[in-house]
């Protein structure tokens, strides 16, 4: 018969942050039943508490405290290494700030549903698991756990058509892209006979010298997996959903998903693609590196140029988010060169951490501006903000500088590491295009600053409540501190490897 597995022989302690979060979310779900509608602040606080516990454990792990052994867990389904730990920290930070941003917004909109916080935490779990999967089945399940709550969160302003439309669009296209991913996984299994990422690459070495039909299956499999993950991170040409969904979803949800979906998607992409580099000989890797390079170029150019034409803040940030996926794709592409894999993964994680604080911060400012009926987020509505609300204008300017990548902000550090990885990987063209498009992006980011400081006007802002103030404070401090003292990020990223240890 079989023995009941226990915590220790699954090495489950290594997954403690996720387990704690799952436990906390389950408790939250039940506790929320007993919390009356006019006291939903308590649900939000409980959710914050749960995230904090999990975040503390994740931080300890990332800083080198041994909680559970590093290595494989859950029968090779899960892998606990520095990469996993840092992804955990990023995902949990975005959940923490995401909850802070959400509370006032939904209070103002009179949406009193405690399930919101549970769904947000479920989604966070999905992102964490995506970074920790070493098995394609796990990646698929984790992707769904990340996405399905996001579809639902987009619909939380239900009677408003834009919110419903955004949820439906996201759901239909998301389901479609999941289909691509599953098809790709099936083909990879057909070609290699395993779901294990390491095993697939080991088998790939044989296949590359073998029969042509098997090569087709392998290439088609990887191609479809790239499509599925590319959709999730919003890379061109799979970005079509992003502007509409970002604009229609409730702003705090947009803030959260713009960061969390990227974290999960890129973590999985690095695991699937870059982890194989030590296994496979260099020249055959070019197969996917070229593909990712083309996608990165398209994403950078389209994202940045179309963002110029937007006159709505949320929509502009949606295109800016596409552009930032492009910068992250540069890091992924750099990982395709032999010997650069680890450096590329480190740069991508640094970028993601910087982006988390900056982007949620920018959306938090939008929350502070937005009226209950979704209006008040045109670029023109920002005119004169520095007179009516100087603090808000100042932090918004900081976020815009960071998104542009101006030195002294977190965004600069992220871009610097990514471009450095690209140059070390001999992808000079990609690095040059990255720098040039950053210059282009200055145009639309700085226009926001110009509107706030140099144009006359008296925009209305929402009364700021403590939790939104905290969110703005944390994100602004994060953007500044990580920008001036990048050691914290490099310290965390130190020791990140993508190779899959057993």
């Amino acid at each position, binding site marked *: 018969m*079989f*023995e009941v*597995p226990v915590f220790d*022989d*699954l090495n489950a302690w290594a997954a403690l942050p996720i387990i704690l979060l*799952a436990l906390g979310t389950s408790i939250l*779900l039940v506790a929320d039943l007993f919390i009356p509608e006019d006291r939903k602040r308590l649900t939000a606080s409980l959710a914050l508490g749960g995230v904090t516990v999990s975040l503390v454990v994740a931080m300890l792990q990332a800083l080198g405290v041994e909680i559970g052994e590093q290595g494989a867990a*859950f*029968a090779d*389904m*899960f892998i606990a290494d520095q990469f996993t730990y840092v992804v955990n920290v990023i995902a949990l930070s975005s959940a923490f700030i995401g909850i802070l941003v959400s509370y006032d917004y939904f209070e103002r909109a009179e949406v009193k*549903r405690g*399930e919101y916080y*549970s*769904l947000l935490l*479920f*989604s966070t*779990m*999905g992102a964490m*698991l995506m970074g920790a999967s070493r*098995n394609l*089945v*796990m990646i698929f*399940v*984790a992707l*769904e*756990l990340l996405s*399905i*709550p996001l*579809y*639902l969160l987009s*619909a*939380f302003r*239900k*009677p408003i058509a834009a919110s419903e439309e955004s*949820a439906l669009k996201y759901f239909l296209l998301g389901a479609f892209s999941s289909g691509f991913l599953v098809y790709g996984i099936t083909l990879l299994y*057909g*070609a290699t*006979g395993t779901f294990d990422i390491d095993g697939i690459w080991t088998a790939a070495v044989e296949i590359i010298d073998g*029969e042509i*039909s*098997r090569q*087709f*299956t392998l290439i088609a499999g990887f191609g479809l997996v790239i499509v599925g993950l590319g959709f999730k991170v919003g890379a061109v040409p799979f970005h079509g959903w992003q502007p509409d969904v970002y604009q229609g979803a409730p702003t705090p949800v947009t803030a959260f998903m713009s960061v969390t979906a990227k974290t999960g998607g890129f973590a999985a992409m690095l695991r699937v693609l870059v982890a194989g580099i030590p296994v496979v000989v260099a020249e055959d890797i070019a197969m996917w590196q070229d593909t990712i390079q083309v996608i990165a170029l398209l994403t950078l150019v389209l994202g940045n140029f179309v963002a110029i034409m937007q006159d709505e803040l949320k929509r502009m940030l949606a295109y800016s988010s596409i552009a930032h996926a492009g910068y992250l794709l540069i890091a992924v592409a750099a990982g395709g060169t032999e010997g650069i894999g680890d450096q590329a993964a480190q740069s991508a994680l640094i970028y993601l951490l910087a982006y988390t604080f900056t982007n949620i911060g920018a959306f938090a400012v939008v929350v502070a501006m937005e009226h209950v009926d979704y209006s008040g987020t045109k670029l023109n509505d920002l005119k004169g903000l520095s007179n009516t609300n100087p603090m808000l204008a100042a932090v918004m300017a900081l976020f815009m500088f960071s998104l542009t990548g101006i030195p002294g902000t977190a965004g600069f550090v992220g871009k610097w590491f990514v471009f450095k990885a690209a140059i070390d990987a001999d992808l000079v063209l990609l690095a040059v295009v990255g720098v040039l498009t950053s210059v282009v992006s200055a145009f639309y980011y700085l226009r926001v600053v110009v509107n706030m400081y140099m144009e006359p006007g008296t925009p209305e802002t929402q009364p700021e409540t403590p939790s939104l103030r905290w969110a703005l404070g944390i994100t602004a401090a994060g953007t500044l501190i990580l920008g001036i003292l990048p050691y914290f990020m490099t310290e965390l990223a130190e020791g990140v490897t993508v190779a899959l240890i057993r």
Partner: protein
Amino acid sequence: MELTWELVAFLGFAVMTLGSGLMVVTSSNLFHSVLFLMTSLFGVAGLFVLLVAPFLAAIQVLVYIGAIAVLMLFVIMLTRQVMSRPELYNQQMAGALVAAAILFLALLFVLTPLADEIGGDVAQVNAEVIAEADDAPDVDYITVEELGRAFVTRNGFVLPFEVTSILLTAAMIGAIVVAREDEA
């Protein structure tokens, strides 16, 4: 080729699958199309049985015929306009034929050699096992029990299994939240 009962059954199920598949796209009544689709799916289930995959066959019947096709019938019956269309909805027969031909060629030249390459030996072995098993009833194929075991043993899919249960919980909660009328 020897005419065994397996061959006869295979031909029967193949005709059933393909024939009703053709009827799905050529029938002008959408309701009939779905009924043919069910027949076609049943044929596929039969093919699974012939491939010694009884679990897959059962799932095919339960999920595709039992759930999905019946759901389609509900949707069609709820939308009257679709029911009463006199002629074929789809007018792109030529394009469909080209697409089908391309897909057929792709399957023929990519997947068939692949199946020979990685599945050929397995089929051989299986055939021998089955041939020998005529008097020994316990043929070694994947049973429901083994699948269940794979979900819970420590060397199996215990983590995806658990995560899936979280996922289903999240989806269920979300569905209720989205579908619920506001009391206010």
